[in-house]
């Protein structure tokens, strides 16, 4: 990938999709959140949220941790180090695009 920050091609299109951007932003400001919280916070249907989370997990941006809390199954979601780095780079690239726009 080119390192020229002003190039629109540097925008991570996986994150750039509006729904996934909302997911990444929400997970970025917390340490972890579970599926139900994300669903309520982002007002998404379970199927839609699951679909986007799967794509983010395939890319290595989100880690899905299944555990038991008081004998009940629980799915925690958190950004991986790769995911946090990718999100920061996405922000920087997007800011650079707007900065370089002709006045």
């Amino acid at each position: 990938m080119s390192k020229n920050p002003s190039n629109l091609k540097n925008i991570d299109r996986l994150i750039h999709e509006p729904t996934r951007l909302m997911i990444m932003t929400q997970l970025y400001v917390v340490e972890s959140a579970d599926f139900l919280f994300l669903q309520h916070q982002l007002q998404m249907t379970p199927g839609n949220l699951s679909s986007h989370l799967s794509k983010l997990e395939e890319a290595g941006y989100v880690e899905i941790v299944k555990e038991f809390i008081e004998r009940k199954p629980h799915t925690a979601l958190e950004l991986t180090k790769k995911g946090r780095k990718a999100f920061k780079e996405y922000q920087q690239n997007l800011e650079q695009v707007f900065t370089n726009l002709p006045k």
Partner: protein
Amino acid sequence: MNKKMSLREVEKRTYMSYHQDGLIDIFVGVYVLLFALGILLMTVTDFSTWFVIPAIFPAVMVPIWVSAKKRLTMPRIGYVKFGSRGANKLMAIFIGLMVAGLGAFMVFTFASRSQGWALTLRNLIISNGMIIIGIGAAVISSLFAYTMGLKRLYVYGLLTLALFLAGHFINIPFGYFLLAIGLVIVINGFVLLIQFMRKYPLSQGDEVNVEKSL
């Protein structure tokens, strides 16, 4: 666009949505009621050791609050773990409240004597008690409001300050003001809790089945 400000706003909104259940209001209101009872009991029986209870209440409150969150909030809205920065700030406030409560206990115990500096301090507290409590409550409430992003806590603090300033000039026993404020906050907390439980009913539907497929 200011990157840090936008993410900070998202973080604050996330925090607010996780604390819309009214539990904080209920516990803060009970804390205020305990102070009110302590002051009213002192006017009747000189029972200054009652102030030990508000001093240790924060230590008792935290595990009860955590348990209430697990039983009432988490099954309805889900679970979120915030970064350590916010948790450390809250813990610092709770510890500060315990220290303030113990400090108040020590001051009142010293002031209960009837000679020298103790008598002077006692007269000062009695003559300006309303203002002291009003300012203290406003400061504590504002600290919680700023840390947690819950703006209604600013309103509680201002309401307390306004009532106590008025009480300083109207000359009504301030225990009753504190009682009224505590009741207002507790009732508002229960109203918020009921609204929260209606907005987020318990569900074992689609989200659970889809969650299992991840």
